[in-house]
């Protein structure tokens, strides 16, 4: 294994001098550069996604009122500055798509799997640098297509991010189901190809390229999380691809996979024998694992950051791995909980309730293990640590309401209300975003060789934390009052008039929270060029990435790849002077490796 890695290194050194601007910054095959490319593309998509959410929140708070922001950004979709109902649906659709796939899948997993897998397992690079490059550029292409879809004549896709047919299949049912939906589907198909290439690369790299001594039970939990995430991705993404392809067939070639017996705009369509419920099954077979594809990497990052900043080993390393595996397995057999009231057999509803509520068990184990990890620690309140604690907080708050939504009997009444929005934004949206921020604050020195400004980090965290709760906590209550999601305005239902003020408060929190992300963006981009130069191991961590030089180089380590002698969590181990022992330090005489 290491012999192979070393030859690889020599190759790299041979080519080192021939690097041009294009091969270094654009068509780079170096995993560290690709990680940065993912991060910056993801950041740009994130800005667009968040801006969209602020616009539709303004519409919900002040329905059908003219708004300068709409007039400036929406053009013909906001005549006299009043947001159009179709573009409202398009905004919620594209917001969901961008945040789930482009930011929290590619931006999060793409960035940190690429950056950390080779560095933490002790490899010169990914198994295939070329595939890795292709993976990024496919992602970039799909991002560009998604953005282009915003500008088509009849409007972008507006069928919700779940694009259920027939709404998404029939241009006469919704303006966004014309060219906008075609581009959406093409963009997603390319995105899936990108994701699969990435995932295969991660899996092969973790299995084959670990350095000497790096057994699976010495891997940092980040790597376990990325590895299992990649496996889930490989299992479930192809199913979405098939759903997208079948939908394209229905839309463009007259097949009837998902359509049957439709009468619209005065005519009967020829479709017969298909079922929209089939699409729901295919979609959620990816769609549910997808939320774990989003949250598991965040869990991995948070586990690592919590241990490092608490100066304590992660509590229950084996239990953490087991719970990742349990969550991954269960995640593939719970998709039906999105479909309790879809018209599928109620008996299936019972089965999916059972499997869904089981997920609470490994999730609870993880939450308690994180809490025990900080217990009696010596907690270093770096911004990354604050975001990690914030992660556990929102994961608990959002996760608990899953007990209600996973219960088919209760789902009847809160399905597709704001209760659902509150639940999934806290448990996988905000939590994963916190995980991503934590990762960025923690590994920024590794990525850019400079430090992020910590005071701006504190400001960023505390305002974001307050606004996140301010936005999503009251939403549970609005949902329990029965307000459906995806309503352009609630003014046609006097029943909901008493929720108007709450909606205004939520929107104000959203605006402030969104605006304060500018603090982060400023910090991020300024620090890349003017941040304080980083030391080699600023957080005094044990993992291998901190043994590489600050200045990036092909092949990661100038000499031989370090060997590994211990697990990655020897923090504050008795018998050592320092409060951390890097993985590449051999066991002292008589020292026992922890039987974890």
């Amino acid at each position, binding site marked *: 294994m290491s012999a192979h890695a070393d030859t690889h290194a020599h190759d790299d050194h041979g080519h080192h001098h021939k690097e041009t601007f294009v091969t270094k910054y654009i068509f780079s095959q170096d995993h560290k550069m690709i990680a940065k490319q993912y991060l910056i593309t993801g950041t740009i998509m994130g800005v667009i996604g968040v801006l969209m959410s602020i616009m539709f929140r303004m519409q919900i708070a002040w329905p059908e009122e003219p708004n300068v922001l709409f007039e400036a950004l929406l053009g013909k979709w906001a005549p006299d500055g009043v947001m159009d109902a179709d573009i409202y649906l398009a905004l919620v659709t594209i917001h969901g798509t961008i945040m789930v796939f482009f930011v929290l899948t590619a931006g999060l997993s793409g960035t940190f799997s690429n950056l950390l897998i080779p560095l933490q397992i002790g490899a010169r690079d990914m198994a295939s640098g070329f595939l890795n490059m292709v993976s990024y550029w496919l992602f970039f292409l799909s991002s560009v297509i998604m953005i282009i879809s915003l500008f088509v004549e009849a409007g972008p896709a507006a069928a919700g991010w779940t694009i259920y047919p027939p709404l998404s299949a029939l241009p006469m049912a919704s303006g966004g189901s014309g060219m906008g939906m075609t581009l959406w589907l093409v963009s997603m198909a390319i995105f899936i190809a990108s994701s699969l290439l990435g995932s295969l690369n991660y899996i092969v790299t973790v299995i084959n390229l670990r350095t000497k001594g790096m057994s699976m039970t010495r891997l940092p939990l980040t790597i376990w999380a990325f590895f299992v995430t990649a496996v889930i991705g490989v299992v479930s993404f192809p199913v979405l691809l098939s759903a997208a392809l079948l939908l394209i067939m229905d839309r463009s070639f007259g097949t009837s996979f998902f359509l049957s*017996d439709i009468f619209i705009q005065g005519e009967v369509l020829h479709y017969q024998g298909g079922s929209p419920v089939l699409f729901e099954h295919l979609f959620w077979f990816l769609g549910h694992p997808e939320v774990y594809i989003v949250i598991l990497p965040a869990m991995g990052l948070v586990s690592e950051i919590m241990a490092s900043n608490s100066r304590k080993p992660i509590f229950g390393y084996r239990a953490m791995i087991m719970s990742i595996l349990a969550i991954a397995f269960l995640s593939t057999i719970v998709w039906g909980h999105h479909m309790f009231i879809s018209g599928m057999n109620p008996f299936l509803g019972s089965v999916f309730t059972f499997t869904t509520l089981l997920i609470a068990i490994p999730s609870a184990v993880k939450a308690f293990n994180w809490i025990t990890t900080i217990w009696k620690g010596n907690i270093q309140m770096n911004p990354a640590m604050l975001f990690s604690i914030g992660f556990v907080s929102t994961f*608990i708050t959002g996760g608990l309401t899953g*007990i209600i939504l996973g219960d088919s009997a209760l789902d009847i009444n809160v399905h597709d209300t704001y209760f659902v929005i509150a639940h999934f934004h806290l448990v996988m949206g905000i939590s994963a975003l916190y995980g991503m921020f934590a990762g960025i604050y923690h590994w920024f020195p590794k990525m850019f060789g400079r*430090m992020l400004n910590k005071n701006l980090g504190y400001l960023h965290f505390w305002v974001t934390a307050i606004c996140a709760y301010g936005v999503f906590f009251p939403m549970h209550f609005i949902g329990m*009052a029965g307000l459906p999601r995806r309503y352009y305005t609630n003014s046609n239902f006097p029943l909901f008039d008493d929720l108007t*003020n709450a909606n205004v408060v939520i929107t104000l929190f959203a605006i402030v929270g969104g605006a304060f992300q500018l603090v982060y963006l400023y910090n991020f981009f300024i620090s890349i060029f003017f941040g304080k130069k980083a030391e080699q191991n600023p957080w005094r961590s044990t993992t291998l990435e901190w043994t590489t030089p600050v200045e990036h180089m092909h092949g990661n380590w100038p000499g031989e790849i370090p060997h590994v002698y211990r697990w990655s969590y020897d923090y*504050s181990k008795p018998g050592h002077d320092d409060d951390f022992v890097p993985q590449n330090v051999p066991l002292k005489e008589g020292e026992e490796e922890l039987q974890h």
Partner: protein
Amino acid sequence: MTAFLTLIIVLFIAVAIWQMVKIFDLAQVGSHNDQIATDKDNTLNGYLMMAFLVFIYVITIASFWYLGDLPLMSNAASEHGSEIDNLMIISMVLIFIVQTFTQFLLHYFAYKYKGEKGRKALFYADNNTLEAIWTFIPVVVLAGLIIYGLFTWTTIMNVDESDDPIVIELYAQQFNWKARYAGEDNTLGMANVRLIDIDRANILGVDESDPNAQDDVITTELHLPVGKPVLFKMRSQDVLHSAYMPHFRAQMNCVPGMITQFGFTPSVTTADMRQNPDIVEKVANINALRLERQDEIEAKGQELLYEFDYLLLCNKICGTSHYNMQMKIVVETQEEYDAWLSEQKTFKNSLIN
């Protein structure tokens, strides 16, 4: 005007951020700062963790205070509704206990064990007993919830045909609802969208040759007799819709190409519900708010004052006017119901020849 104000606020915030950024930068000139948390940072953020814990509790209490009447979690208007409400309340209480407890532990530990130079953390990597405890407790609690939940679900979803329920079709199209009553034979006539004949006013595609169809009654309002089981058969002619009847704790998607169903027994008439003290209070509150917005509401041509009615809402995104796809539901006594139904045209008589 609001838009203008919003923009000003956004600009103001942007300027404020920029100013703060400058201040932070200035404060750091010359001082030794390697951007790693110092003891001072640890202390400050430790206290902020406790403050944040308080914030979580405050926002919880405030949400209950302002939004806690939860009209759709109490005063269920169907017989199975109270079972759902009970289960919901049990789950909620459980959630709030766990939430309060775990958030306390998390934030309190973050405060209590904030870093100090020279202190060493406890090397504590594993404890199988602890892991077993917090695996076992969720298992037991969830087992209880799962059993209770599945029991409730099965009772709700298994429609007992021997109760002889009134069969009503709910028919969804962009962007309105129709109801079709089965008539005296209590059997709906066959229907398919391919049979729709707009010229003859056969708008639901009912099979004109089916004898069962002749006495069917198509309406745009849903009337239900109190205390009688109803079985809804749902159809959609174009895209997915969802028939959401929150007061009755009922919801089911309407799927083109298939018939879905949901059954319940309404237990409170509209008239009685309007007398319910909670509803009276809620309506008064809403009307006070509506009076404040009088001009705006009248400009839209809506009724100024709100009166309570049960509603059927569309709860699955279905296109442009999804936000206004509703139908009024009236629950009344058997006599009122019979009288209303007899006034409606039967399908046979509604056709244009």
